[in-house]
C-alpha cells in the first residue's frame, strides 16, 4: 500500500516537471525530424516508394529502412537511458536533501517501501516515455512502409528494459556515491566498456578488464540493432532470457539500494 502511494506521488510529481516535458517533446521532435528526412529521401529516390517489387530496389529499401530504424532506436534508446538514470539517481537523494523524506518516513513506512515506491514511480515515467516514442515509431514505420516488422516493437520493449536496468544500477549506486557520480558510473560501468578497454591493454590489466566484462551487467543484450537491420526476430527463449536477466538485475539493485538506504543517516 505504501509502495503504491509513494510510486503514485513520484509519478505525479515527475509529470509536473517541465524538464520532463521538454525531454518528451524533444524525443518526439527527433522522431518527427526522422520522418521528414525519410520523406525527403523518398522524394529523391522514387525507387523507395511503396510498391517497388524488383529485388535490387527492395534490397535498397530494406537497407534504408533498417539503417534509419537503427539510428532512430539508438537515439531514442539513449534518451530513455539518460532519462531513467537522471530520474532514478536523484529520486531518493533529492527527497533526502529537501527534507521531505523525513515527513514521509515519520509515517509507518519502511525505508525499503519508500525506495521501491520511488523506483516504481520512475519506472512508470520511463514506461510513458517508451509508450509515447514507441507508438510514434511503430505508427510511422507502418504508414511509411506498409508493414510493421515484429522486431520494431520488440526492440522498443528491449530499450525499456535497458533503460530501467541502467537506471536501477544508478539508483543503487546513488545510495553510496553522489548522484551525479552514480549516474556516470552506472552509464559507463557496462560490461562492454571493459571489453572495449581490454582491447588496449595487455597482461594482468587485460585479464582484469575481461573479469570485469564477465562480472558487470551487459547493456548490449538489450540492443536489437542486428535484428532491426535484418528484419529478423529472436526466439521466444532469447526474449525470455533477456527479460529474466533484466528482472534479476532490477531485483539485485533494489535489494542493494534499499539495504544501503536502510543504513543511511537521514540528517
Amino acid at each position, binding site marked *: *500500500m*505504501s509502495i503504491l*502511494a*509513494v510510486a503514485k*506521488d513520484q509519478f*505525479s*510529481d515527475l509529470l*509536473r516537471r517541465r524538464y520532463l516535458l521538454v525531454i518528451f517533446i524533444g524525443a518526439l521532435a527527433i522522431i518527427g525530424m526522422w520522418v521528414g528526412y525519410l520523406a525527403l529521401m523518398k522524394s529523391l529516390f522514387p525507387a523507395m516508394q511503396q510498391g517497388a517489387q524488383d529485388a535490387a530496389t527492395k534490397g535498397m529499401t530494406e537497407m534504408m529502412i533498417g539503417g534509419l530504424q537503427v539510428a532512430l532506436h539508438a537515439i531514442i534508446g539513449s534518451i530513455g537511458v539518460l532519462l531513467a538514470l537522471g530520474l532514478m539517481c536523484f529520486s531518493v537523494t533529492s527527497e533526502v536533501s*529537501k*527534507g*521531505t523524506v*523525513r*515527513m*514521509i*518516513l*515519520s*509515517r*509507518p*513506512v*519502511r525505508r525499503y517501501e519508500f525506495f521501491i515506491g520511488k523506483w516504481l514511480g520512475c519506472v512508470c515515467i520511463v514506461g510513458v516515455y517508451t509508450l509515447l516514442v514507441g507508438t510514434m515509431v511503430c505508427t510511422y514505420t507502418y504508414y511509411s512502409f506498409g508493414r510493421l516488422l515484429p522486431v520494431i516493437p520488440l526492440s522498443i520493449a528491449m530499450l525499456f528494459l535497458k533503460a530501467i536496468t541502467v537506471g536501477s544500477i544508478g539508483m543503487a549506486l546513488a545510495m553510496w556515491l553522489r548522484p551525479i557520480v552514480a549516474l556516470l558510473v552506472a552509464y559507463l560501468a557496462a560490461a562492454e566498456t571493459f571489453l572495449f578497454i581490454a582491447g588496449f591493454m595487455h597482461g594482468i590489466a587485460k585479464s582484469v578488464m575481461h573479469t570485469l566484462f564477465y562480472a558487470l551487467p551487459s547493456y548490449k543484450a538489450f540492443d536489437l540493432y542486428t535484428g532491426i537491420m535484418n528484419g529478423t526476430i529472436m526466439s521466444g527463449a532469447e526474449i525470455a532470457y533477456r527479460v529474466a536477466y533484466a528482472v534479476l538485475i532490477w531485483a539485485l539493485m533494489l535489494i542493494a539500494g534499499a539495504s544501503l538506504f536502510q*543504513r543511511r*543517516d*537521514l*540528517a
Partner: protein
Amino acid sequence: MTSIIELDHLTKSFKGRGRKVETTAVNDLSFSVEQGEIFGFLGPNGAGKTTTLYTLLGFLHPSSGGGSVFGLPFGDPEGLRRIGYLPEYVNLHEYYTPDGMLNYYARLSGLDPVEARARASYVLERLGIADVCNKRISKFSKGMIQRLGLAQAVLGNPDLLFLDEPTSSLDPVGRKDVKDLLLELKAQGKTVVISSHILSDIESLCDRVAIIRKGRLVKTGKLDELLSTGSGVRITTDKLPTDAVNEIQQLGGVVIGSDTVFAIELPDREKEYDVIGILRKHGCPLISVAEQKSSLEDYFFDIMKGEETK
C-alpha cells in the same frame, strides 16, 4: 505513570569528511517521557535537540546506547503508527493542495479513506486552513505551511507528538491556536514532546522539561520544581508601618513597595510564618502569599551560564 519514551545512554556521533573528525551531537543522554504529559526539550542552537528527535523517529542510527518509543525500537513502523511529527522546517511537496497532501499522508499511514477524509476536514478546520484547502501549497505563507505541517502531524490522531519549533513561524493568533490545540490533546491523554526556543511557550505548556547543552543532559525535571528551586516567598499587603518594616528587615526580608501595595520578599520559606505574625501584630491585611518563582528564561540563562563556567 507509564514511560512512553525511554532514552538509555544515547550517543550519536557524525563522521566528518575523510571520516577522521567525529562530532558528537548527542552524548550519553538518558531520560524518559511519561504518558499524557507535555515534555519540553530545551537547549541552545546545536545542542542536539533535533538530532535526538531524529534518532527517536529512526532517521538516525544511534552510535551507542539506545532506548525505546512505546516499548519498540526507534523507527519501528508499529510505533510510528502512533506518532505524529512536525519538523522545524516543514518541507511539503508544493504541488499538492492541503486536501491532496493530507490524503497522501493518510494513505502512507494506512488510514481508512473515509476516516481519513473526516479527520482531514476536522484538522484543517481546527487549524484554520479549511478555507484554503483547494489552494496549491506553493502559494502558502510560512505560517500557513506551519499550520499545515501540524495538520499532517495530528491527522492520524496520534498518541505521541514530536513537535520541533511548532510556533516559530506563527503570528500571536496562530501561536494561541496551537497552544490551545496542544492543551486539548493533553486533556485527551496524548503525550507531546516539544523542542522550542520560545521559552514562554514551553513555560506555559510543559509539565516537565529536559535541558541539553552540547549533546549532554544538563537538567531534567518538573517545570514547577525546577523554577522554584532556591526561590523564596513573596508576601503582599496594602499597609506596612515603619516598625513592621524594621522587624521584617531584621528577619532578612526585603520590602519593595509604594504607598498602596507592599511586597515582602523572603529568600526562603523558614521565616514565612514569622513575617505573617508581624503583619498580624501590626494589623496589616494579608493580600497574598506566593512562592517566588524565576521565569523559565531566567532559569535557562542561569543554567547556561553555569555550564559555560564549568
